[in-house]
């Protein structure tokens, strides 16, 4: 079908005002591949009609929330149609007494949070680019941030889900109650599947009460080892932290600048927050402070109120744009807790060897290390193969320990030279079979998921 005809058919479903075509599609390019059209359905019915059209015309489809995580995944095999979900932006259900709420996929996390705060509750998601992230995007990518330390990730929080399948069929899984073992736990299948099995339409999530008080202690250390010891001490104590973050010197400096608190150079920072009733927060912060001091922290600060909010926002959003055209390649290593520091050191050493600047931010209590590489000043167009080489080398080491290393975002030139996901083990054939069962024509995000799914 040619572009004009496609535009007409789509307009027939959603109205001409909600279709973008031709050159205007450029902002919706995925790894430089622009779609033929972008369509914004208003509801489940329209989305289903769009998918029926796509499947009868064999058009490949990229579901799109706000595009903040569009860098995740391999370079798509084809991009015919982008399905924008921003008009599906309502809270369907919110009953504070049940600690659950149901959201449409296109709802901005920020707006969801505002509604929940009025009920004294919140959704413990703090992915990068919080301001623009949508609920559906967070679920499809299973994005997470520091809060995962206490609250887990989307896979732990979604209790019910509705999806539109490749052929337009609408199905649901789970329920709107916190416990249900009726049938397969379908939410688990869709969360983190990058839209390759179906488009998430809405989801019911478990919520948490806002803590009465939350405070953060930042401790600075001269070496990563000392910082690592402090983190281990905290993790093996009975202190209940909401967030435990370890920042490499580069990241600590940058986050400090963003958050308006100048941190001395060449120190590794550990930021730990505790949320509870005031007396319990004070007691635990005091214990954290003491542990850090014992592990030779050279300085420490208590951060609360709006400064605390800016600090954590800066940590989640690290790295902020540098303004000189150099872009970071962002990686996520998942390793055992004991290997967090070594992972950071290896990434830094590899970076030095390859002439790259490195930074690391780690959810150290979960074994999650976000690593950042970019060319040094003056060589912005560093050969992409050096980063690809670094990824392969680091991945080899991470895999040996039973971990994984994934590229969260990188320029297409880098993604073209290295598998963004890495090996997924001997269950790949099962994943392929699931894909075949759910999307036999391979229309949903083809080529972006593991093993070329």
């Amino acid at each position, binding site marked *: 079908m040619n572009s004009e005809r496609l535009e007409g058919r789509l307009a027939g479903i959603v109205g001409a005002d909600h279709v973008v075509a031709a050159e205007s599609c450029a902002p919706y390019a995925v790894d430089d591949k622009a779609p033929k059209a972008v369509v914004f359905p208003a509801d489940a019915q329209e989305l289903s009609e769009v998918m029926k059209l796509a499947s009868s015309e064999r058009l490949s489809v990229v579901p799109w929330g706000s595009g903040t995580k569009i860098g995740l995944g391999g370079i798509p095999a084809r991009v015919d149609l982008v399905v924008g979900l921003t008009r599906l932006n309502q809270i369907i259900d919110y009953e*504070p007494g049940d600690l659950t709420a149901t959201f449409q996929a296109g709802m901005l996390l920020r707006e969801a949070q505002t509604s929940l705060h009025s009920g004294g509750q919140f959704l413990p998601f703090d992915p990068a680019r919080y301001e623009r992230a949508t609920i559906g995007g967070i679920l499809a990518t299973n994005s997470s941030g520091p809060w995962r330390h206490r609250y887990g990730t989307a896979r732990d929080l979604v209790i019910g889900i509705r999806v539109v399948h490749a052929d337009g069929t609408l199905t649901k*899984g789970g329920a709107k109650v916190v416990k249900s*073992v009726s049938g397969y736990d379908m939410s*688990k299948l869709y969360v983190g599947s990058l839209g390759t099995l179906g488009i998430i339409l809405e989801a019911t999530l478990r919520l948490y009460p806002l*803590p009465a008080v939350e405070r953060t202690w930042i401790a600075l250390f001269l070496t990563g080892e000392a910082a690592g010891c402090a983190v281990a001490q905290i993790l093996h104590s009975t202190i209940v932290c909401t967030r435990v973050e370890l920042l490499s010197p580069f990241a600590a400096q940058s986050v400090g600048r963003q958050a308006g608190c100048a941190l001395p150079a060449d120190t590794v920072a550990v930021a730990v927050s505790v949320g509870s009733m005031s007396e*319990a927060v004070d007691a635990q912060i005091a214990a954290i402070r003491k542990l850090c001091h014992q592990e030779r922290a050279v300085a420490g600060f208590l951060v609360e109120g709006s400064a605390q909010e800016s600090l954590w926002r800066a940590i989640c959003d690290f790295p902020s744009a540098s303004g000189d055209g150099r872009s970071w390649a962002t990686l996520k290593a998942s390793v055992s807790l*004991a290997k967090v520091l070594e992972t950071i050191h290896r990434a830094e050493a590899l970076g030095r060897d390859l002439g790259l600047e490195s930074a690391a931010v780690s959810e150290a209590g979960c074994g999650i290390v976000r690593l950042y590489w970019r060319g040094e000043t003056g060589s912005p167009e560093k050969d992409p193969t050096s980063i690809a080489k670094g990824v392969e080398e680091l991945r080899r080491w991470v895999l040996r320990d*039973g971990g994984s290393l994934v590229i969260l975002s990188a320029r297409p030139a880098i993604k073209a030279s290295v598998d963004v996901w*890495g090996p997924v083990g001997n269950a790949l054939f099962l*994943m392929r079979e699931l894909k075949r069962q759910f999307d036999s024509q391979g229309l949903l995000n083809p080529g972006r998921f593991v093993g070329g799914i």
Partner: protein
Amino acid sequence: MDKRRIVEGLSAIVGREWVISDPDELTVYECDGMTYLEKALPDVVVLPDSTEQVAEVVKFCSREQLPFLPRGAGTGLSGGAIAVQGGVIIGLNRMNRILEIDLANQRAVVEPGLVNIALTQAVQDHGHYFAPDPASQAASSIGGNVAENAGGPHCLKHGTTTMHILGLELVLASGEIVQVGGKTLDYPGYDLTGLFVGSEGTLGIATKVTVRLLRQAEASKTLLASFRTIDAASEVVSEIIATGIIPSALEMMDRHIIKALEEWLQIGYPEGAGAVLLIELDGPAAEIEAQAKGIEQICAQHGILDLRIAKDEQERTLLWKGRKGAVAAVGRITHEFYLQDGVIPRTKLPQVLREIEAIAERNAFVIANVFHAGDGNLHPLICFDSRRKGELQRAIAAGAEIMRLCLSVGGSITGEHGIGMEKIDFVPLMYSPDDLEAMRRVRVAFDPSLRCNPGKLLPTTRSCSETNVTYRPHRVEREGLAQRY
């Protein structure tokens, strides 16, 4: 195929002493914890000792076109471990080793036959524990907990089994061995570990389980609060949650349970108590002290009859004794009971409990309630006597009414016991044909032969052409209480 050949084939894999074929011995395996609806004998029970043996047994079943199913301790309450179509039961009880404890990373790797409580016992001296604590935890196996996504009183705060399972080794229906997930988080690819947990043995057999261990809390506090009415206790539940406190457990018992327990254990609940709340807090000492004070205030505002706070571990055990003995105590007031497992939004508790009471009155049954009030997971026990004509049938009908009631307020027909055989005909009340079709696709992706625990979890259509399995009406269907689609 003749049974002698099955026994010989399986004996060649595991040794003759680990193959059970004597009809009397097989009777042990005719049902699991669901004893009242259906029973069925397997042709053979086999007890392998390793992943490789499980794989060989499954391959044998595949060659011989035999249905098969895994079984742990057989404590399941929905009939998931009943060999409804005969075939081979693969008992995993010999595979009960702890393979690895990695406290630095708060992980353990265990075999599926390991009894739940044994894992906590192995790590508690080091300040850790395995959080899922179904009532059966002294007997049930971790593999069974995985299959059912077991709950328990403390999953209100710490989550059901699925949150604590990070990786699995699986033997698929083809006999292939695959690894999904592992000790680290966020494995790339579809979350097959999450999908497998709660799949009731229909997607394959877990032969190794990687679990998360939790750090024990600094302190815990157990409170027992008695009220005159269920409504007052329900309001207290809502208010505790509304003030931002998430107890580790929040359990309720009604007047029938209280009466049965008093007759048996003389716990000493106050005169006139119509509802008892068992509330447990865990966390930093300073936090739970403050929370306990808050809870005391809420209770006082709702006309509490009596509040007891455990001063030590011994008293804590005493306060839990009633809750733990509740289901057994009901045996004293009835010949049999039919245990339900519906879930409702917490805010609907008073309304739903009133309607359950009305169902009881209409049927002239006692329906006793002991349940996880904090997460809305009800456990109505419908008391009946099958020796009286038509009572079992009416009890099943009352159970169906309760399931419909739970669904009508946006709930679920099962919170932790599973579908198994018991609720298979009620699944279509909760899910549309399209929803079920999506689940069937999952099933087929893992096991195209559909020989892995057939007749469980997913209702097969009456004219199912994809299986070579003969259609067999469920008891509720035979008795005209439900229909297949």
